[in-house]
């Protein structure tokens, strides 16, 4: 592979442009093809659609769909445990918390950190189907604003921290905002797979496990 091509690939990934690196495994010839350049119904278009790299004849299509993203509302302890696992599994992480005392670079180094209200930052953010969303503040004033936007988006996973009781109260509040039952059922609450998690790191594992299930198998 030419260094220039690797640079172009890294730039495309950073800009969240879907590209495929097409390599002829016999000759070594390579090129980058953008998703919107793939002919409709072609093998390449299929590979993009299913996010599956594939060898077709002598050509290998390596699919680079945009990296997964995780939006965390709440610069809290559990966020600090979720972030390293999320990054290890390929997510670009963004933390949103209007409370400046929580959202500090010292507590969240090397992370896109926004000390703003969810309703101020998220509308321009693009919560797409490669994005997971988690509300962690326990503060309805903050979480509900984020959840409202997440429910109107294509986010593949929406989770909210809290007990069954607080989740029921949350659903009632969101229902009053006009969301129907089917839409509200998209929120995983209490958040995470039931693995008997004790403490923030184990809760983080249960959340990441449920998110992975949603990504790979879908949630029913």
């Amino acid at each position, binding site marked *: 592979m030419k260094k220039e091509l*690797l640079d172009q690939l890294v730039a495309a990934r950073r800009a969240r442009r879907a590209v495929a690196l097409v390599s002829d495994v016999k000759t070594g010839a390579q090129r980058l093809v953008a998703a919107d350049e793939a002919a409709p119904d072609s093998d390449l278009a299929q590979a993009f659609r299913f996010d599956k790299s594939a060898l077709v004849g002598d050509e290998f299509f390596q699919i680079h769909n945009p990296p997964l993203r995780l939006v965390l509302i709440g610069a809290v302890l559990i966020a600090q445990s979720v972030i390293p696992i999320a990054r290890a599994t390929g997510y670009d992480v963004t933390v949103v918390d209007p409370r400046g005392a929580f959202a500090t670079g010292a507590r969240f180094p090397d992370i896109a950190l926004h000390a703003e209200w969810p309703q101020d930052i998220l509308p321009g953010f693009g919560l797409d189907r490669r994005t997971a969303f988690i509300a962690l503040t326990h503060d309805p004033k903050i979480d509900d604003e984020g959840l409202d936007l997440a429910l109107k988006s294509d986010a593949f996973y929406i989770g909210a921290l809290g007990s069954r009781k607080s989740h029921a109260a949350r659903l009632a509040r969101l229902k009053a905002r006009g969301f129907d039952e089917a839409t509200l059922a998209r929120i995983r609450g209490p958040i995470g797979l039931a693995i008997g998690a004790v403490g923030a790191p184990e809760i983080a594992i249960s959340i990441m496990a449920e998110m992975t299930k949603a990504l790979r198998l879908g949630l029913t």
Partner: protein
Amino acid sequence: MQVTEIASFWVSEGRKIALATVVETWGSAPQPVGAQLVIDANGHFEGAVSGGCVEGDVITTAQDVIASGAPQLLEFGVADETAWRAGLACGGRIKIYVEAVV
């Protein structure tokens, strides 16, 4: 950091590197098509193309590929004669494309 980004970072450090990519699998394979390993001229590597069964051979091949610049297509599996030195315990077969970044 994902393998693509690690590769780019290593190149920026002036290291000579190769990329190994799983391009085809048959049967039970530990890593999916598209999984990658980045290897430098000193044999340092990141990523995975198997459960650890064939990485040793891939790293050795990568040294040749870095030296020659010519890509190689490798195949591993229990049906192969290489099974004795690098077999896949799970019984599958995989094809791996190894290329230098030049």
